[in-house]
């Protein structure tokens, strides 16, 4: 029962590992080169999924500040004196406006998901798709050379000297 609770409490991590193992199995055991590359993509997305899930917090929103949070008291009078907020005001005025608004910018980190893993994994997605593109280009080259994308047939042809 304890084991069941330990598994069900973190069920998403177990499913990430299942997806990762499916990808690893496909990379090793599949005979077709395109199937191997699909398996590689599944493996990569499973790892990215794990990293993004680290940044999730309970009841947290997307990591973007809304206008009301940056200008809390400016919201109701924004229609009244629009000229005071325009960019044509001189330096002294804009500095005073900064003094007025910046101390009230109180952001609770628990309201937002952690954006650092998102940014890191954004790079990993792009790297993953370029890896897939290079792999598929090599697959096309292999097909032009050997007339097959099955690994066993290609190995047979290489062994028999074409």
């Amino acid at each position, binding site marked *: 029962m304890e084991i069941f609770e330990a598994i069900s409490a973190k069920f998403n991590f177990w499913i990430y590992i299942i997806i990762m193992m499916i990808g690893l199995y496909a990379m090793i055991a599949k*005979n077709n080169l*395109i199937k191997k590359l699909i398996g590689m993509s*599944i493996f990569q*997305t499973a790892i990215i999924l794990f990293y*993004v899930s680290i940044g*999730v917090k309970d009841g947290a929103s997307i990591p973007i500040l809304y206008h009301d949070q940056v200008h809390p008291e400016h919201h109701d009078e924004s229609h009244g004196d629009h000229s005071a907020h325009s960019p044509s005001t001189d330096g002294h005025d804009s500095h005073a406006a900064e003094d007025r608004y910046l101390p009230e910018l109180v952001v609770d980190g628990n309201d937002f998901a952690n954006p650092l893993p998102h940014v890191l994994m954004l790079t990993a997605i792009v790297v993953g798709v370029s890896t897939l593109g290079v792999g598929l280009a090599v697959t096309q080259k292999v*097909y032009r050379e050997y007339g097959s994308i099955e690994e066993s047939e290609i190995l047979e042809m290489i062994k028999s000297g074409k």
Partner: protein
Amino acid sequence: MIWQFDLIILVFLVITALISLSVKDLLSAAMIFGVYSFLMCLLWAGMAAVDVAFTEAAVGAGVSAVFLIATVLRTSRRSSD
């Protein structure tokens, strides 16, 4: 994220991964891999990672599927396993 939705999408994710690896027609495998990427995109939108979800929808479900289909059309469509 609501854990029931999380569980349903993750189960579909495993199912689509297994089907795209076991189907014999490579064009179907490419399309089902697109479905896999779209489910992954839904999961990330639910995890409040909207930037990653955008990128996955454009790059994973779009460009990867196009690459795979182009390769399948220029090579053979049948797979032995």
